[in-house]
């Protein structure tokens, strides 16, 4: 077995493992439960896509893919930052009520208006 | 003076990224660096700060070691069939004052095992840190103060 064959076999393994990771991440994005979880899932999706591109660069020997991976990293970071700003501006729409842990700081219930808007949005989706 | 240093560093990065050291490419690098530096001129802090090179390298070494450790620790935690988590957010009292020091500390904390910096209070005296194991916040605070915070202060003396 030549080194090239070994590397080729390993890229197949890596692609399989990355596909599994991609499936798990997509499950998390589908599941939610809040917008922040989905944004985090998208961030992870970009990271896995970078891994995919790097693996394919090794498999095909086409090194220009590395530049594409770096560019995707840049765009992915900006997208996550933009989504975080969006959450700051709009707020979340929690689908699963949770009980708060012991706190020292005061917690305030969400704005009535914002909650209503969130519910309206959800109803529109389903 | 500091702007010149930044310009130089950016040009080096440019030639590394483009993979060529020809005079024309270096000239283009200087032009692009100058343009981007000019765009953010309001945000760049022009006051030069002292750096101890050896201490700075030590800080970098610490950073990579902690990063590797933290990735492995999270990976091990994930595959355990029953995760024992005691997460929580604690407030870490900052003794660093300058913006770039706080930024550096926050980034270092995020990449250490089990801790993630969430926010800085408006008066820059408290750093809110989320920890996977928050059963003993006092010990965690002590670790950060004696580890990263001390190293940063040593690397960048006032």
């Amino acid at each position, binding site marked *: 077995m030549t080194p090239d064959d070994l590397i080729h076999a*390993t890229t197949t393994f*890596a692609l399989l493992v990355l596909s599994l990771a991609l499936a798990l991440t997509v499950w998390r994005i589908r599941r939610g439960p809040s917008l922040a979880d989905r944004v985090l899932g998208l961030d992870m999706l970009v990271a896995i896509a970078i891994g995919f591109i790097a693996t394919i660069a090794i498999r095909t020997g086409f090194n220009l893919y590395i530049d594409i991976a770096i560019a995707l990293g840049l765009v992915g970071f900006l997208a996550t930052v933009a989504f975080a700003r969006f*959450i700051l501006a709009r707020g979340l729409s929690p689908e699963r009520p949770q009980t708060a842990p012991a706190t020292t700081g005061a917690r305030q219930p969400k704005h009535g208006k914002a909650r209503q808007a969130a519910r309206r949005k959800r109803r529109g989706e389903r | 003076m500091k702007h010149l240093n930044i310009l130089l560093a950016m040009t080096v990065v440019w030639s590394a990224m483009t993979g060529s050291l020809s005079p024309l490419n270096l000239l283009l690098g200087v032009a692009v660096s100058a343009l981007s530096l000019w765009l953010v001129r309001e945000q760049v802090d022009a006051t030069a700060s002292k750096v101890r090179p050896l201490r700075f390298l030590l800080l970098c070494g610490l950073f990579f070691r902690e990063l590797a450790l933290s990735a492995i620790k999270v990976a091990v935690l994930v595959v355990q069939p029953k995760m024992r988590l005691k997460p929580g957010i604690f407030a870490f009292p900052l003794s660093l004052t300058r913006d770039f020091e706080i930024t550096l500390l926050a980034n270092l904390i995020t990449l250490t095992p089990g801790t993630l910096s969430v926010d800085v209070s408006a008066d820059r005296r408290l750093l809110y840190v989320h920890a996977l194991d928050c059963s003993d916040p006092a010990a965690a605070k002590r670790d950060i103060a004696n580890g990263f915070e001390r190293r940063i202060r040593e690397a960048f003396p006032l």
Partner: protein
Amino acid sequence: MEAMMGAEPVGMAVAVIVIVLLVAGSLFSLLAALGLVRFPDVYTRMHSASKAGTIGSGLLLLAAGIHALDGAILLRAIAGFFFFLLTAPVAAHLLAKAAHQAGERLHPVSVIDQMPQDKTGSAG
């Protein structure tokens, strides 16, 4: 440009390094995704995505850079790796801050939350 195709065969030493990096990188990515599924709330999930995820994609990128057997490309891959390392904590902490300010609660197993949530500035 000859940098387009890495046609020359690689030596055994390089092959071993590339294989180790490939396996480690893909496994870290998988564990990060698994953490995304298994951890109880958004803050703990962030730990998994920002550490294991970054290391995973970074190692795969390094593997590609080493496999190219070209100094310029390796340098580019290392620069990209550093870039991911610098941006991942920034993205994670911005997202955590946004989630906390928007009212995302910690999971009930959490023991303490010293961060006040009723801040006026929603930072426009």
